[in-house]
């Protein structure tokens, strides 16, 4: 099996090709995903290969895309719907919350709703208004929906295949800032990665850095810098932000006694709050300093000239680590 160097968006594309080839019931739908191959090229080649019936350009209507996907999913298909940018997912909320999340629970198992919602999210690519949001916390608050966020080509490939396999509805958020920054050697071996599991990307004894999505990159950078200062940081990519694999996070924090959580979304009501609250409860006797959160501010993502002020960088993370080390 040939190994190729792939970017994250290419890895997404590879996983879609594989899933569609393996299972006729997998279909894709969304805006501009067909002949155009998606505005980020994530669906390139799919319509050519699998036809217009299975790779569907829809009218411009996100409520409809979600509603139709639910209808398909409950009728034996496995729809992978694309929301062009996460900032445009809100019209789909009623469908996702009142139906996708509940269809099996409501019918006591008679109907399933195995759909995947793919959406590029996050800032940092100098996009116009509404093209840079990170509102994963909203969906993570909805029981019944799994929310998965890859942060490398390899994890994008393995997690997307698992998301498509999953009989539960999965929201799969792709940090577009990472779409093309890094290539990884990847074989199209179909290897799945587990949902429900955090990934420990780097081990360390001194402090636990918890993050996901595009912030994984800055956090790893920060860990490098900390290393130079003699601080060994453990870096955990949460990856599936709902439901949360607290065991891995808890064990790490019990080990290190110190924790910094990094995310791009605004602070209040972010998933960082949830993790911090649980860790503060579950590792109460082990914490040597208050958990710090490095996040966006409680404002809309500013337009791109100022977005660097909203986005945390490695220095911001290091500063927070310093605070917990010095506490």
């Amino acid at each position, binding site marked *: 099996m040939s190994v190729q160097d792939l970017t994250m968006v290419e890895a997404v594309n590879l996983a879609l090709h594989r899933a569609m080839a393996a299972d006729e019931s997998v279909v894709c739908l969304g805006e501009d995903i067909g002949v155009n191959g998606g505005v980020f090229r994530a669906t390139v080649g799919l319509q050519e290969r699998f036809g217009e019936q299975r790779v569907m350009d829809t*009218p411009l*209507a996100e*409520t*409809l895309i979600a*509603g139709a996907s639910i209808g398909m999913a409950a*009728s034996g298909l496995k729809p992978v719907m694309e929301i062009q940018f996460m900032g445009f997912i809100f019209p789909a909320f009623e469908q996702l919350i*009142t139906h996708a999340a509940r269809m099996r629970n409501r019918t*006591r198992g008679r109907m399933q709703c195995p759909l995947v919602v793919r959406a590029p999210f996050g800032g940092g690519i100098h996009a116009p208004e509404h093209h840079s949001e990170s509102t994963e916390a909203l969906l993570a608050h909805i029981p019944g929906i799994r929310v998965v966020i890859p942060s490398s080509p390899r994890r994008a490939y393995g997690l997307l295949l698992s998301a498509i396999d999953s009989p539960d509805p999965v929201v799969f958020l792709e940090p577009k800032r990472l779409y093309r920054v890094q290539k990884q050697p990847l074989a199209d071996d179909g290897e799945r990665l587990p949902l*429900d599991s955090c990934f420990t990307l780097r081990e360390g004894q001194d402090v636990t850095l918890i993050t996901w999505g595009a912030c994984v990159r800055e956090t790893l950078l920060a860990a490098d810098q900390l290393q130079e200062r003699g601080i060994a940081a453990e870096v955990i990519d949460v990856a599936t932000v709902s439901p949360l694999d607290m065991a891995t996070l808890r064990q790490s924090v019990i080990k290190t006694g110190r924790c910094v959580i990094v995310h791009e979304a605004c602070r209040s009501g972010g998933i960082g709050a949830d993790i911090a609250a649980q860790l503060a409860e579950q590792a109460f006797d082990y914490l040597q300093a208050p958990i710090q959160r490095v996040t966006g501010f409680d404002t809309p993502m500013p337009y791109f000239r100022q977005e660097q002020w909203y986005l945390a960088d490695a220095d911001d993370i290091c500063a927070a680590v310093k605070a917990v080390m010095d506490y």
Partner: protein
Amino acid sequence: MEPVMQTVRYLDDQGHTCQELPLWAHEMEPLLECYRWMLLTRQFDQKAIALQRTGQLGTYPSSLGQEAIAVTLGLAMEPDDVLVPYYRDHGTQLIRGCGMKDILLYWGGDERGSAAGPQQDFPVCVPIATQCGHAVGAAKALQLQGRSQAVACTLGDGASSKGDFLEALNLAGLWQLPVVFVLNNNQWAISVSRQKQCAASALALKGMGAGVRSVQVDGNDVIAMFDELTQALEAARAGQGPTLIEAISYRLSDHTTADDASRYCPQEELQQAWKKEPVARLKRFLTSQGAWTEALEQKWLEHCQHTVNSAVQHYLEYSPQLPEAMFDHLYEDWPTVMEDQLQAFAERRQRRLGE
């Protein structure tokens, strides 16, 4: 400039034929079947309301006056068609094999009510018009799989103002999907009258902007409804695309048992509407044809009463779900990472029941 919709009808308010009947309606048996189901539906509704009044059922939406729509739909559908209902389709659900007990369970606050019915049928849908998206998705699935089944999706006149319906209608026309939208125009969306919902002279006109064949039908005329539904469902199954049927009817009851229509519904309007209701209308026709008698009616009503009563008995005696059932089926398997929730629940249970 605005095109005028003609309302399809065969029986006038008095139950006299007002145009040549379709061939199938020359036989009495199909019409008798409709009639019997309408009576049963009405009996069921009455009983459900009585249960609610005595605290044995939750909020319940009666279908009084709109039984012709539900029943003709149920009878026009094939067993392997897909029903995507809203919440006022008890007649259709019953015909499709959903038990009375199950319908009562649902409105009695028990999820198991939606476990019943044909595998492919969708459960009762409460968020208005959202079912329309499901219907086009299900229809697309059938189209893709090369099946010749149809999807029937019901909705109310209020629902016709919500984007979900309009977006789905557009897709149905665009992709020529095998779906029939049955719009129960019962003149009210709770307290908002049809006139305060939309300025178009017919709600069926909404099909025009979506390229969907549309028809307005007297929804209290069983013959017109059954005929149009059969044609539309056959067209859908034959790959000839979708249809929107606006069925003109009237809500003779409160919106639900939680509502008091006397606050907003003009008394004379209601009285006028009673003169057009579908059960009496069909009865007059059947009687005039010698196909129905008071004796048959009494016998059938007794049968209905018996059926309803034993379903109610079954419902009332049905053993409750376990408290922890709320966790079931939410995920395919309860995620291990969420076991602390089960633990917390067990503690709550222990505390409250001492078990």
